[in-house]
């Protein structure tokens, strides 16, 4: 019996009981849809994290204070005051692969302009800070080294603050507003950057000279972070090593001592984030695969019912000359058609689902073609497996008994 005939016979049998066919397909549809949706969304999440991390800065290297233990007591990283402005100067001088360096000191504060106020965050940095963090100036100018030296009370404000503290159409440049008790002059505004990967508003900030934040707002001499730009992506690793060795010398850390700082590259952060999203994706895919398995068991169950119900049909087909192999193939084809059609519907549904969700969450829509292929193949295999035993049962039917079956 040729394959076309086989497909025709099986399709007819499936069409004879449309409701049951649709219901038994449903398991596979949901399973495949879940797998495809989860994989695509996971991929989209990864992509959006990568986009947002690269938004954070160009070949960014971050130096953070590390959690330290003193006499066995964990100090908590926020209490460590090991990073100093001098470290930045040493890095700027000593690390060949680092092009730009900026200290980072931040402070929260109430921003006030006349009757309007807003709680924002003030970031203190060097004039390079904006470029390292990929902020662009919309209007006005950046502050200068001179401003840093003079602890100048000047700042650039993000678009969220422009919206909250100024009327529509009002030019903030040259206006004096307050942060806490300190008045400062707005010398520039920043272009909008949107939310970052964690949903934080990247436009809700004031950038000032670090010295101003250190001396006039916080009254401290340490800094919280150092951000640097590596010359290129290729030298990022080398730059990290340079920064580490400079800081170890500067901090007088013995050969076997633990660093009191932590250096992270954008790449590492990307990997960290994607390993996190990867883990979540894996767990969700595993759950989706379980539902796929349940779908297969559903098909197997229905096929067993079908075989029993159609005992007489099997007997008849055998009596008019169908070989056992033809009966086996017929039922196998039925279950494969079932699972393949279910798979295709699930595939489309999964694509649609992931498209809608990524649209709703403003994530990039990524289609993982490999997984589409994998799920299609696995559908065929699952159909084969779940149909095999019922089909075998059918092919072993004794036609004499089957013809008498009521």
């Amino acid at each position, binding site marked *: 019996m040729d394959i076309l005939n086989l497909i025709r016979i099986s399709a007819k049998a499936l069409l004879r009981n449309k409701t049951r066919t649709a219901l038994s397909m449903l398991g596979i549809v949901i399973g495949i849809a879940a797998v495809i949706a989860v994989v695509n969304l996971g991929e989209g999440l990864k992509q959006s994290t990568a986009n947002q991390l690269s938004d954070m800065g160009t070949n960014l290297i971050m130096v953070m204070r590390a959690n330290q233990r003193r006499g066995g007591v964990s100090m908590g990283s926020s209490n460590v005051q090991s990073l100093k402005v001098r470290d930045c100067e040493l890095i700027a001088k000593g690390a060949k692969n680092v092009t730009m360096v900026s200290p980072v000191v931040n402070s929260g504060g109430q921003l006030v302009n006349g009757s309007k106020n807003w709680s924002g965050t003030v970031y203190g940095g060097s004039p390079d800070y904006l470029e390292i963090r990929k902020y662009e100036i919309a209007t006005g100018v950046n502050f200068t080294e001179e401003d840093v030296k003079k602890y100048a009370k000047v700042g650039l404000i993000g678009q969220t603050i422009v919206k909250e503290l100024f009327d529509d159409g009002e030019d903030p440049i040259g206006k004096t507003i307050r942060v806490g008790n300190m008045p400062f002059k707005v010398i520039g505004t920043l272009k909008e950057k949107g939310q970052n990967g964690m949903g934080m508003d990247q436009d809700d900030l004031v950038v000032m000279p670090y010295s101003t934040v250190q001396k006039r707002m916080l009254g401290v001499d340490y800094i919280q972070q150092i951000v640097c730009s590596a010359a290129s992506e290729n030298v990022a690793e080398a730059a990290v090593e340079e920064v580490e060795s400079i800081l170890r010398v500067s901090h007088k850390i013995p050969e076997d001592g633990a660093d009191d700082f932590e250096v992270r590259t954008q790449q590492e952060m990307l990997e960290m984030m994607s390993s996190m999203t990867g883990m979540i994706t894996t767990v969700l895919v595993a759950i989706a695969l379980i539902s796929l398995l349940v779908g297969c068991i559903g098909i197997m169950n229905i096929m067993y019912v079908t075989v029993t119900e159609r005992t007489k049909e099997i007997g008849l087909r055998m*009596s008019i000359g169908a070989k056992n192999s033809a009966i086996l193939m017929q039922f196998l084809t039925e279950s494969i058609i079932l699972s393949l059609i279910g798979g295709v519907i699930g595939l489309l549904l999964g694509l649609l689902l992931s498209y809608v969700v990524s649209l709703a969450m403003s994530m990039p829509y990524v289609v993982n073609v490999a997984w589409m292929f994998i799920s299609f193949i696995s559908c065929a295999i699952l159909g084969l497996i779940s149909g095999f035993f019922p089909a075998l049962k059918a092919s072993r039917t004794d036609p004499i008994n089957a013809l008498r079956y009521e």
Partner: protein
Amino acid sequence: MSERQSIIKVENLKRTFVVGSEEVHALKGVSFDICQGEFVSIMGSSGSGKSTLLNILGCLDQPTSGEYYIDGISVRERSKNELSEIRNRKIGFVFQSYNLLPRTSALENVELPLVYNPDVSHRERHERAQHALELVGLKDRMEHMPNQLSGGQQQRVAIARALVNDPVIVLADEATGNLDTRTSYEIMSLFQNLHEQGKTIAFVTHESDIAVFTSRTIFLRDGHILRDEPVVTKSAAEALAALPKDNDY
């Protein structure tokens, strides 16, 4: 009759079933020939072995001992697949309960045996099925589903299905068992027509008033042939005409 070719040749056929620890001898040595163009009825009460004999004649079962030739081919020691092929090419079955595929048109039901014959093209299959349906008088019912047909019409479809592969013999198993007298006579009349056209038919029944429409009767009792004798054939068409006209019918 002896000069005619023998379609079925059975020699000392025995069939023993093992039920639990007991041996049941369903056929205890049966021998007969059916020649081309014969219309034979095989009669017997239940337990006489006629179903067992029919299963063996239909190549659904194998004898324990003895020889069975169909169209000159020995059936003994044949594999399951070879038996399937013999059923497909040489035999046409008609069952008591019609056994049509539900929700499948009459035409497609008739096509079914040819589906399992790779030598028959799609087009030829279609044409032969149409022809077979014409032969049983269902030319205008080809696209009807079985549930849209009366019992007699369904049995006609089943007969067409048995004829479509041009078998050497048509085996009918209580083919009128589910039908009322009038319809039974109609079906028997159809069988007689087919017989006149030269078809070889073996008709298993336990009703003697059906057997009279055939030309020879083999009586079975307890696994033996009790009698094997020619019948003074009654015309089913005449019997049909003689039936009282029933207004309810």
